[in-house]
């Protein structure tokens, strides 16, 4: 059974058809890429899978269950984690708090524990601390544990966001332009990080990226979106040489 299956996903924003008949199937452990020019509907696709937008029509089946119409936090708790193009970190909170908050759905101590500080709560919070530290270590940001995220370098913030998504213990990780705004050095670093979590955690990864080098390096299969429709799908080599892809990115030659 595929891990995630998206069938004929379509969404309209008013009269605008942002995504049309989008299909994708994920086998466990697969790494797929989604590319396309600005405004092609890549992030919208992510938003539909994670429940932020409700598709106009189509099905999203995760582990045999249709998740269309579910709340984003429920979808996330099922094991679909994502990162954002603009990170969406919580600016007043420390790195540690970020990771622990991603474990929200695993809290068992309830309101009584929160109000009165029961032993059960202390036990679980300590457990969370340990688990969170593990993720910080994994992404090599453990030395920033108790710092507020706002002052951290951009590359570190990206890693914190990644660690936060991993703390959900997802089955599939959706990365929305993880190298956006990075310099080449940070970018290579990020590619290493993604490869590392792919190998170590055996995660299924869905990657939106603008930089061809990153996608070509990491992905097994790449889809290309243009104006909300898939115009090409294949291995990195196939995509690189696909005429329609080149046309979408660079434009067509016109005889004058």
């Amino acid at each position, binding site marked *: 059974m595929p891990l995630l299956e998206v069938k004929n996903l379509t969404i309209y924003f008013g009269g605008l058809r942002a995504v049309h008949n989008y299909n994708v199937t994920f086998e466990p452990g697969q790494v797929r890429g989604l590319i396309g020019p600005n405004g092609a509907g890549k992030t919208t696709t992510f938003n539909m899978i994670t429940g932020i937008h409700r598709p106009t029509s189509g099905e999203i089946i995760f582990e045999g269950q249709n998740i269309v119409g579910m709340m984003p*936090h429920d979808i996330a708790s099922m094991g679909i*984690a994502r990162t*954002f193009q603009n990170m969406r970190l*919580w600016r*007043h*909170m420390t790195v540690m708090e970020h990771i622990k908050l991603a474990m929200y*759905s695993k*809290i068992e101590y309830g309101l009584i524990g*929160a109000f009165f*500080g029961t032993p059960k709560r202390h036990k679980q919070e300590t457990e969370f601390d340990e688990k969170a530290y593990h993720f910080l270590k994994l992404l090599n940001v453990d030395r920033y544990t108790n710092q507020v995220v706002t002052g951290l370098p951009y590359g570190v913030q990206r890693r914190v966001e990644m660690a936060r998504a991993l703390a959900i213990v997802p089955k599939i990780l959706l990365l929305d332009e993880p190298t956006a705004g990075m310099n080449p050095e940070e970018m290579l670093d990020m590619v290493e990080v993604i490869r590392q979590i792919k190998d170590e955690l055996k995660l299924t990864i869905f990657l939106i990226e603008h930089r061809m080098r990153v996608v070509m390096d990491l992905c097994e299969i790449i889809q290309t979106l243009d104006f909300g429709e898939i115009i090409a799908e294949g291995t990195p080599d196939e995509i690189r040489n696909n005429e329609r892809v080149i046309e979408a990115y660079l434009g067509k030659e016109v005889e004058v």
Partner: protein
Amino acid sequence: MKATDNQIKNLERVEKKTTGIRPVRWLREKTRRVPALGWLLGALTATIIESSVGLPLARAFGLWSVPGLFGLRFIFTSPASIPSAVIYVLVVYIIPALIVAVSTAGITNRAAAFMQDKLPVPINVIIHAALLYATLHVWGSITDYRVLLLSFIFISIMLTLSLNLVNGYMGEFSCSHPGFMSIGAYAASIMTVLFFVNDDVFGAHILSPVLGPFIFPIILIVGGFITSIGALAVAIPSFRTRGDYLAIISLAFTFIVKSLLENLEIIGGPRGFMNQPKYASLPVIFVWMVLCIWTIYNFTRSTLGKASCAVRDNETGADAMTINTRRTKMITFLFAAFWAGVAGGLFAHVMGYINPATFGVLKLSEVLAMVYLGGLNSVLGSIAGAIGLQFLLELLRPLAMLKWIVIPVLLIIVMIRRPTGLIAFTEIKVEDILKPRN
């Protein structure tokens, strides 16, 4: 770059230390080593001295009675007495407190270390709180004025903290606190009058008045829950949206509750509601305040409670990270309303009389000022804000309505210098306050 900055700062500090006056330096060195326990002991000594020899001492310094508020009110009423008041405060409070705190530092540090290592945190907190209460009790025993002031300060702390939950931790702007307070006040009042008082409207008491003080906590809690239910009226329509909507809806709520109370003849209408037994004595309020601070402190430090900060900082991000945003907002808001309701119930039973006019815009601005003066997102800030503003209100009382010009101006200055308040976004662990300092 940062390292050099720090180095320069350190150098400056060293320079200051060497050039500073010797006794001051010595004192600073000494006082730094005094734990919270030592300060409490010093304060207790000072208040005991005042309660035993305060009046003769005050007379000796040329004051006709013990200055109620450290002589602060003389600034407006009789400036000529200020020097005497300063001497009085020095002799009665500061010098004895310093001597005791510094001289017992060795013992108190050892005691604090013992309590930190051997006792669970709540017990440790209770011991400190008991000592603090003893100090305040002795301080208050001089005049009824001080007891009333302390009662209002405690209630203000509860209100400020609970409003900070919504305006600080949750990042919404709620104006419904006077409404919540009045619901709690009226609910608790109706229950106590119905059960324990012979009243013209509600008839003879149902239960023996002897039981009153024992049932009172239950009544307060029930009043708090009723307030929480009332808070749903604000929460449900406004939490679907963000931003200004809550401010508008909650302001409307305050006015609706107020005019509802004004038009209900059975509870006195605009004339107010009286006959409440004065169950809310100083120790009772103190215990409730400690409970309030303790639960809110716990809540804001738990991952469950911090979720509301995540929702404030980025709701979409929070939702994508498994946080149930709707539930989080609801919990925080109803929790805040609960404590506002309890504070209202206590307020009614301090005064023995309430009327709807008390819970209007003036009350709202008072609580808001306490929150924003003290600092958003900080338990300690809220406590400081409540105490500070309540003191200021008392201090400026001789100015009558003019104080409502002075305080807003002060607030504006604070907002310009520190936009989020004096002690904002600082989280202080209670263990750090109570720890030994040697």
